[in-house]
């Protein structure tokens, strides 16, 4: 079954990549397998993620979307007992053989499923990454913090309390500051794990607009449970099931004429 799948996936991705002829492959994932100890969570995942596009990952809970996303900036390294095989090539460099995780993570930013702000002020949270890269100039930082917070559609709500603890914000506010924090790093790729699941529609819309705007310059991979969101903002969609990529294609194709019955079931299950 795996083989068939792969053939399908390959068959599909090949032409789509052609369609957007100008876009280059940013991330190339080949035969990725991942184990949590004995338990395999990803099975022979192959995906080509195009530069300056939004790629959405959809699939039922527990299918491995977060796990996959976290392999892209090697966050899974932090979990004991995780074994990875296969290759992930970012900009021609295999990130699992290259030693420079720091560079990888500054280039591949991340926004998590649960907001995880540090127990510091809002300002310090957003300035955290740049400061760690050695940016010290207060003016530069100020500008960067404002720009990032605006970008995450939260500036107006927090501009008067930048120096107060970030943990006093509501869930949605916190998540938007998390996005600001990632944006402040000006990465090449931004990974987002259900970044809007805690946001209200207005903020969601703003963030979605932001994402569409960011893709001018950045490559974005986003996990979402919201089909409309995937349909609205993504160029490509990958459907995961039980740790496998069932189908990966142009978003339109996935949503309108999916190849695999399971994809259709899943998507129509939404509408049913």
């Amino acid at each position: 079954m795996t083989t068939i799948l792969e053939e399908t996936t390959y068959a599909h991705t090949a032409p789509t990549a052609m369609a957007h002829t100008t876009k280059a492959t940013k991330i190339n994932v080949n035969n990725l397998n991942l184990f949590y100890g004995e338990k395999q969570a990803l099975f022979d995942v192959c995906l080509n993620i195009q530069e300056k596009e939004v790629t959405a990952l959809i699939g039922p809970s527990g299918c491995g979307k977060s796990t996959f996303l976290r392999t892209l900036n090697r966050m899974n390294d932090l979990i004991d007992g995780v074994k990875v095989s296969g290759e992930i090539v970012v900009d021609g460099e295999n990130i699992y053989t290259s030693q420079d995780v720091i560079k990888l993570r500054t280039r591949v930013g991340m926004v998590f499923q649960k907001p995880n702000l540090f127990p510091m002020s809002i300002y310090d949270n957003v300035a955290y990454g740049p400061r760690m890269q050695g940016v010290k100039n207060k003016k530069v930082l100020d500008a960067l913090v404002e720009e990032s917070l605006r970008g995450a559609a939260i500036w107006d709500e927090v501009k008067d309390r930048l120096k107060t603890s970030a943990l006093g914000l509501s869930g949605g506010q916190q998540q938007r500051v998390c996005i600001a924090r990632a944006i402040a790093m000006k990465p090449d790729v931004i990974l987002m794990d259900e970044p809007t699941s805690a946001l209200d529609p207005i903020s969601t819309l703003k963030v979605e607009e932001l994402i569409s705007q960011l893709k001018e310059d950045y490559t974005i991979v986003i996990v979402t449970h919201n089909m409309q969101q995937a349909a609205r903002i993504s160029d490509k969609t990958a459907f995961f099931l039980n740790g496998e990529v069932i189908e990966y294609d142009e978003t339109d194709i996935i949503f309108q004429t999916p190849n695999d019955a399971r994809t259709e079931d899943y998507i129509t299950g939404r509408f049913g």
Partner: protein
Amino acid sequence: MTSPVDTTKTDITKANKRKYAMEKVSSKIFLICALLSVFSLVLIVGFVFYKGATPFVAGGYSFIDFIFGSDWVPSEDKFGIWPMIVASLYATVGALIIGVPIGLFTAIFLAEIAPKSVARILSPAIQLLAGIPSVLYGVFGLAIIVPFLQNNLGLARGQSLIAVIIVLAIMMLPTIVTVCETAIRAVPKTYREGSLALGASQIGTIFKVIVPAAKSGILAAIVLGLGRAIGETMAVILVAGNALIIPTSLTDSVRPLTTNIALEMGYAAGTHQEMLFATGIVLFSFILILNFVLAKIAKGGQ
């Protein structure tokens, strides 16, 4: 879209090289610190074992007689520590039975029940108790607890197992309270909310969710508290009576292993001194077993 971060990216690998170097160096430093700590501890254990093993390895003394013998007369070359082992066991278990619940409950009270303003005063006050030298606990025991026992229990001598237990329990209190309180305060708020929202009472929440979640810290508290109480012998020397009998009641005077060491070390020489180190080995094993049992209990409780 150029940014300060972008500009640094040009030589990012160079900067990162420095970072990785720092990373390597720092992790080596941490390792060295850990090794240094472990090394110094190994050195102590080695020292105690070397000294303590000599009589049995080179001096022809029987280890069995040492452990199970009931006569301790160094000047007559008799070294039996069985009464002390029994005394230590009783004293430690007794102190744990009294000290742990009181300490843990006090910590819970401070972290969960007491109004903030009260906790803010009481917590440092109890930490202050940790700084009072054990000699003074001993003096307190000798001047207050011992006469109290003599007068109220009609004892000829207030220096007794029960006095030791009380003093040990008091001495471990500050450590247990302080470490437990920190551990309890560190339990995420969401656990508390989740439990209360299920209609659990505050008390139910504390004992079913918060305390189990703080288990590791509580165990550390007990171990450290016990360590402090056992390790600082000066108080116990004053209230134990140090008689060389196998205790049969709480009012018997006892000589725990620790006081035997501290009591005679200042005057001991030669084999006598080595036998005191051997007592130290037994004590170390004793504590090892105790900690092991505590860890097992904590695991089993889950």
